[in-house]
Structures are given as structure tokens and as C-alpha cells.
């Protein structure tokens, strides 16, 4: 699977552009704030249905324009399909599959793509909600029913919190408690199972980037309940225990909306004790592990976006990372200055110059002597 064509119009600062790609490496080269990240963001948005920066739609549209669009052609298994997103000011985004509008992002075919952006360090050092968001997004991507559970849970949670604020009758609140336990159990089971799938890859990637013999652990922490054993019974017990506190604080205190995921290095939490470098390596490892899970469960190549990463990786780590991703799928990277030395066997790639939103193929297909 790879992106063979891309067409962008009025997306952020990117000048209208139409490009063709091979299933190999694409290097976007240019100074800061010239549009490299915007280009990767556009690919991420049209492929996965959400912006990795999770900002407002207005910001996606070029200043002074009414609408933006990003269209890609994806080659997969000897055939291809087109996917397009149109962002219009003051309207809902329109998604098109082979030119036909589709509702609720029910794609016929998925575009398998993962992206690492510098802001992803927030998954490691930010609030628990960022870690839950990462897991729910990654999970819903390979298992769309998870998103339906999360939406349903969020609505039931909002309903229950209103009832707690209104000091409603217990017989009504308990109906929503039952719903939160039922849907919440599914969400927690999904997350734990996904974590089990992800963790071996995460450990391998982290050791590859951060040190070979480190003791690395991941722990799933239940929000106000015990996440080990019989989840349903544990949730029921926790709700009973916190009934009075929930009544007085007028908010739901138990359930997967308060879960957290702890990453431990030598028994110590990354979030608190990790260095910037360690956190960054972990964030990157998470995205690489996400890629590995997709490869495994979907049996497909995965397109990889790496924003502003290569200047910071030393040659040895770069070599290790490249070994994992190149040749296994299409890769888009951004560099600010010189193009770093590529590993042996990967001297051929496409360079795109990015300046003031203009993307030029002036570099064409370059050959470097390794």
C-alpha cells in the first residue's frame, strides 16, 4: 500500500500542488514554518480522518480561501482507490471515496498510515487523557467498533453527570451506572488486549532507540477500580464504594474515562523521571509499535510519516530505525538542513523542496553515494 498521487488545494499555507510518488522514500526539505509539517498533516488527515494536531477546521483552510481539499490515490494489492477530504468554512468536512461522498467516514477501504510528530511527546508527558486518546484512536483504527463503544460511553457518562448535578433519583442514575459498567467493560477489555498486542513491539523499539538492556514495563491503571480480574465485578464494587462521593462531588468518578497507562523504565515512571530524549524515544517507539500492530493484524504495508526527527537521531539509531521501516512501506520524512546520510542500500529517494508553502520537485530523484 502506498500513496501514488496527491493533490492539495488551499490546505493551510500549501500552494496548490499535484505530485506523484513511488512506494519508497520521500524527503521534504525546507526551513522551519515553510509547510513541511502541514504537508504531512494533510496526508494524515485524508488517510486517517483526523488531524494529528486536532485543531479547528478553520485553521486547515488557507487564509482568505473558503475551502481546502486534499486528495490522494492509494495503490493497494494491484488496484487503486481515491480518497478526498474537503474542508469548507462553517460546514462539515466532506469525505469522498472514488469521487462519491461517504457519510460518517465509512470508508470502503482503509489507508494504513502512522505518523510521528514532535508534539507526540505529549502522549508521554501530558495528562492521562492524551494517553487514553492515543490508545482509543490507534485501537479504533484497526477495530472501528471500539469508536462506537467510546461514543456511546461518552454520551452515557454525560447523561449520568447531568443527573448527578441535578441530584436526580437513584433509580434513574443506576440505569446509567449499569450502562457505564456494560459499555465500559468492553472499552477496558479492548484497551488491555490492544496493550498486550502493542507492548512487545514497544519494548523492542524502545530498546532499539533507547538502550538494549533496559527493564521496560507498561501498566494499565483503572480509574477508581481494579483493572485486574473480573472487570464487571470490580466496576460494580467501585461504583458502590464511591456512591456517596459521587453524589457530593456531582461527577462520575469510576470508569475507563479516568484510566491511565504508565510507562516504566527500570521501575520508574517516564512521565516524571524520563529525560526529554527518553520521552521522545518512547513517543516514537509508540508510533512504531502502532505501525507493527497494523502490519500484523491487517497484514498490510503501512505508510509512515516522520516529522522533524532525523536531525536528532544519531547515525546508529537512524540506521536501526530505517532497517525497520524502509522496504516495508512508503516513508515520508522532513528535514530542515542537509539531507542526512542514508543507510546503505537506500541511496535513492525523492526530494521535495518546501519554501513558503510552495512544493517543488526541483531536486527530482536524487542519487547519493552512500
Amino acid at each position, binding site marked *: 500500500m502506498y500513496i501514488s498521487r496527491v493533490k492539495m488545494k488551499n490546505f493551510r499555507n500549501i500552494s496548490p500542488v499535484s505530485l506523484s510518488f513511488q512506494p519508497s522514500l520521500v524527503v521534504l526539505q525546507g526551513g522551519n514554518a515553510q509547510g513541511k509539517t502541514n504537508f504531512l498533516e494533510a496526508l494524515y488527515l485524508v488517510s486517517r480522518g483526523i488531524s494529528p494536531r486536532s485543531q479547528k477546521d478553520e485553521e486547515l483552510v488557507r487564509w482568505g480561501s473558503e475551502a481546502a481539499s486534499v486528495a490522494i490515490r492509494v495503490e493497494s494489492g494491484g488496484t487503486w482507490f481515491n480518497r478526498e477530504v474537503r474542508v469548507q468554512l462553517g460546514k462539515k468536512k466532506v469525505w469522498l471515496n472514488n469521487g462519491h461522498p461517504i457519510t460518517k467516514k465509512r470508508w470502503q477501504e482503509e489507508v494504513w498510515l502512522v505518523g510521528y510528530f514532535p508534539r507526540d511527546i505529549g502522549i508521554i508527558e501530558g495528562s492521562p487523557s492524551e494517553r487514553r486518546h492515543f490508545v482509543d484512536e490507534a485501537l479504533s483504527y484497526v477495530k472501528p*467498533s471500539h469508536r*462506537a*463503544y467510546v*461514543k*456511546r460511553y461518552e*454520551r*452515557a457518562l*454525560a*447523561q449520568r453527570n*447531568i*443527573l448527578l448535578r*441535578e441530584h*436526580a433519583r437513584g*433509580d*434513574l442514575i443506576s*440505569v*446509567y451506572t*449499569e*450502562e457505564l459498567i456494560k459499555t465500559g467493560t468492553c472499552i477496558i477489555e479492548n484497551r488491555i488486549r490492544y496493550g498486550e498486542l502493542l507492548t512487545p513491539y514497544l519494548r523492542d523499539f524502545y530498546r532499539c532507540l533507547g538502550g538494549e538492556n533496559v527493564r521496560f514495563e507498561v501498566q494499565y491503571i483503572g480509574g477508581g477500580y481494579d483493572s485486574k480480574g473480573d472487570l464487571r465485578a470490580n466496576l460494580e464494587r467501585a461504583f458502590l464504594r464511591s456512591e456517596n462521593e459521587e453524589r457530593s462531588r456531582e461527577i462520575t468518578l469510576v470508569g475507563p474515562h479516568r484510566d491511565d497507562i504508565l510507562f516504566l523504565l527500570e521501575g520508574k515512571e517516564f512521565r516524571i523521571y524520563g529525560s526529554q530524549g527518553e520521552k521522545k524515544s518512547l513517543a516514537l517507539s509508540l508510533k512504531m509499535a502502532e505501525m507493527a500492530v497494523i502490519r500484523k493484524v491487517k497484514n498490510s504495508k503501512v505508510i509512515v510519516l516522520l516529522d522533524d526527527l532525523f536531525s536528532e537521531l544519531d547515525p546508529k539509531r537512524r540506521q536501526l530505525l530505517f532497517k525497520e521501516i524502509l522496504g516495508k512501506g512508503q516513508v515520508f520524512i522532513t528535514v530542515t538542513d542537509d539531507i542526512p546520510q542514508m543507510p546503505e542500500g537506500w541511496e535513492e529517494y525523492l526530494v521535495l523542496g518546501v519554501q513558503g508553502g510552495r512544493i517543488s520537485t526541483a531536486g527530482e530523484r536524487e542519487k547519493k553515494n552512500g
Partner: protein
Amino acid sequence: MTDTYPESLRRLIASFSRLPGIGPKSAQRLAFFLIKSSPEEVEELVGSLSEIKKKIRLCSECGFYADKDRCAVCNDPSRDRSTLCIVERPQDVLIIEKAGYRGLYHVLGGSISPMRGVGPDDLSIKRLLERLNATGSEKIREAILATNPSLDGETTALYIARKVKPLGLRTTIIARGLPLGGDLEFTDEGTLTQALEGRREILTG
């Protein structure tokens, strides 16, 4: 564009445009159709329209549309009076009918939703429990919950099921071979017939 039309025509188009599912183009098409229709046809339509507000009301027994005190279903002696199917809105009755159901109905008038400000007392739940409590020839032996398979529909069903449980009658919920967050209106009849056949007894916890 429509500015050049006579005012009465513009008013008619505007009225049609306010109807659900009618856009400006459909509204114009309807208006032009009526212009070409015979006076009798238009008269008949006008008659039906004015009768809606005068004559259509909700059945005092079940809450379905009626033009007398009781609706056609409640007045039909051939219906199975021991089974009661509980739905959210009057239009849901027609969907269940098409699935081949021959018992009685109870229309709740919506679903419980605190964020929309709808509580149990805003729905016809008290009246429902009265009906289920009735004895004698009108005794109901089975209640089928057929609220929408959405979060609000299902929490409403669970709330009602818990209230009905002490009455000791069989309470079933239609089996949900339906997509999460679905709506009865978009359910094809085949699926719903299966759902009615495969209804299961609800676990009220």
C-alpha cells in the same frame, strides 16, 4: 430567483420548504404540480390538511394517532390483547406493524435523555404501568420493549424493565441484530421481523 414569482406562490413554496426532507427545489416542484392539478384535487388536499389539526389526536389508551378517542389498533377486536409492544414514537407503530406484530401498543412519546431535559415523568410511563397493572380481560401477560437501539432508547428500556419487573409479567426486549446507535426508521423490515421473533427476556440486574 423566486423573487419574480407572485407572492402567493412564493408563500406556498416557503411553506413546503419548512417540511422535513423538502428542499427548495422539491418545494417548487410540489407547488408547480398543484398549479397544474384540478380544483377538486387541490380541494381534497386542503380538506386533509385542515382535518389534521382538527381531528387527529393521540389515542387515550396507547398514544398512537387516532381520529376518535381510541385508535384503530385499540378498537380492533381481532388483536391479541395480552401482548403490549412499547415504542418511542407514534411512527414506530407502523414499522412494528410491518414486521407482522398483532398485539397492542404503548407509545412513550420519546426517550429519557437528561441532556435534552427529558426525564421519566415527561414520558407516558405512569400510564404504561397502569395498563400493565390492569386485571381482568385486559390483563397483559407480555411486555415487549421496542425502543430505538440507541443509547437513549436502551437506557429508557432498562429503566422501564426495572419498573415492570415487580409486576411479575414476562418482559422481553427485541433482539438487537441492529447496528450500535441505529434508528428504527432505518431498519429494513426483514431485520425487524427477525428481531421480534428473537426477542429475549431482559436482564434487569
